[in-house]
């Protein structure tokens, strides 16, 4: 999220949110780290680790059309449940009745509301929520959350590869009329 380099933003931003010292709250960071192993050299994807502070969150996706956010959630579902939300289904502090809270300041849902109010939402914004069990102070994921992180990573790798392919086909489609001229 450079202000000054003048570089074009990558079309896709992937954001992992969490606190590595609050056990399952680190789920978003663990998934992001796994995705980094696969996509670190991919120029079309920006990988961002955040703690959920809303303004940094909004500014971290600046310039990208597609944003994927991975965060831990806490609801009445079994630990390790993977939830999927789209921005248009998220408002205030809840998405489909599930709290997208934050220990700091505003929750993810409110950050999305703020972005909506300031017309700063990307074209597509998806949230992957991983149901946590243990948010106490300490390191390490609980077993069901660790398994869910592996599954979510695999799903996101597939999703990102599809998105990259669609970018190629879109740029190809854009290039063809120009070539005919």
């Amino acid at each position, binding site marked *: 999220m450079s202000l000054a380099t003048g570089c074009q933003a990558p079309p896709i931003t992937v954001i992992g949110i969490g606190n590595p010292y609050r056990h399952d709250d680190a789920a978003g960071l663990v998934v992001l780290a796994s995705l980094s192993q696969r996509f670190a050299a991919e120029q079309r994807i920006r990988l961002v680790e955040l703690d959920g502070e809303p303004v940094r969150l*909004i500014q971290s996706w600046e310039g990208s059309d597609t944003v994927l956010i991975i965060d831990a959630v806490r609801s009445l579902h079994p630990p390790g449940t993977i939830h999927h939300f789209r921005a248009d289904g998220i408002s205030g502090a809840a998405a489909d009745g599930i709290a997208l809270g934050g220990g700091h300041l505003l929750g993810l849902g409110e950050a999305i509301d703020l972005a909506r109010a*300031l017309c700063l939402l990307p074209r597509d914004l998806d949230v992957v929520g991983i149901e946590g069990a243990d948010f106490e102070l300490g390191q390490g994921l609980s077993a069901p959350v660790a398994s869910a992180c592996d599954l979510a990573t695999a799903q996101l790798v597939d999703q990102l590869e599809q998105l990259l392919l669609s970018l190629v086909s879109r740029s190809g489609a854009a290039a063809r009329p120009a070539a005919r001229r």
Partner: protein
Amino acid sequence: MSHDHRTRSFQVEALTRVEGEGGLIVEIHDGAVRDVRLRIFEPPRFFEAFLRGRAYTEPPDITARICGICPVAYQMSACQAIEQACGVTLDAPLRDLRHLLYCGEWIESHVLHIHLLHAPDFLGYPSGIAMAADHRAELERGLRLKKIGNEIVEVIGGRAVHPVNVKLGGFYKAPDASRMRALAAELVWATDAAEEVARWVATFPIPDHELPDGTDLVALRHPTEYPMLGERLVSTSGLDIAADEYLAHFTEEHVQHSTALHGRKLAGGDYLVGPLARFVLNADHLSPRAAALAAELGLTAAERNPFRSIVVRAIETLHACEVALAIADAYAVPPRPAVDVPPRAGAGCGWSEAPRGLLWHRYELSADGTITDAHIVPPTSQNQPVIEHDLIHLIEHSLHLDDSALEALCEQAVRNYDPCISCATHFLDMRVVRT
């Protein structure tokens, strides 16, 4: 909410727009304030225990995780304490880089608090999101200003969240001159914008109120600078001490309603840390435009109204922009990115002014650099007693208000202190009860 002929009560289950989650209970009985308790539930001091047995090089990275809003403050206080223990002094250009990094954090933190947390109170909105419809230009200006704070932290610290480039003795890598020039160009705009923000908040309706009599204002002091990286601690009661004398004058005690410790002066009485205290004790060291604007807006060393803290924060934001611009403009890549900090057995104390106030660290090291003891006193735990007593004082003079107005005033007053409950422990949820 309930009423009878003797008592009234209300509850606010969650205190919003503070950084963290916690609780506040206010009890009013027979028209008199019986008690105010700021409750914090989470187990404190996790990080102090976590640091014991770790290498002396680790606290800058580990303590940065205590707070997402002020990680630089934790890094700066930790570095200074351990460098003191090891008998190391920084090169001047490296200290300038630390000062610049700290300016970035002050800009980020103050701008966030002013625009999204506190301004809605003064302007009558339930949240910053609700305020956006009517004050979009001001919020957009604030977001751009905050982004420049982020950018400073990213350029110097390696990334905007929990900086990774800070190490004992300086930095892993010195910033590129080209990035610093780009930063300076942005800071020209930021300085003007910060002045506009200060003029904007100065128009807000400010409740007429003063801190309780006898509150001691406490802040760091530097011979020539506004004290982000101050050297001595001073107070309006005449205290003037070094970092290793802190525990001879201040202590922390456990109270039943909170798992965070409360800061106390050993001599007795409340004390206040944070922007208002810093300004009162250091106004003579503000940058030129910040000093001139403070005077124009009527801020003086006699200021004791905590509701005017929002104006002080804006003045400090302008100061941070001016200082950051001066350092960025004069930047040349330093001869070395860090000085060597070899371990030695001993103890060291360090402190700095986090956006919310004084942050004191102390470490004991063994000869190989293993940490044998760590002690961290964050600003919010120091301010907890004065927050409680200030609320009692405020409510006593506001009993004519109906319950919802009094609740709103209490929440606004708590936010005067910009409490970072995540630093004091982690998580706070606020409940106000009037009985």
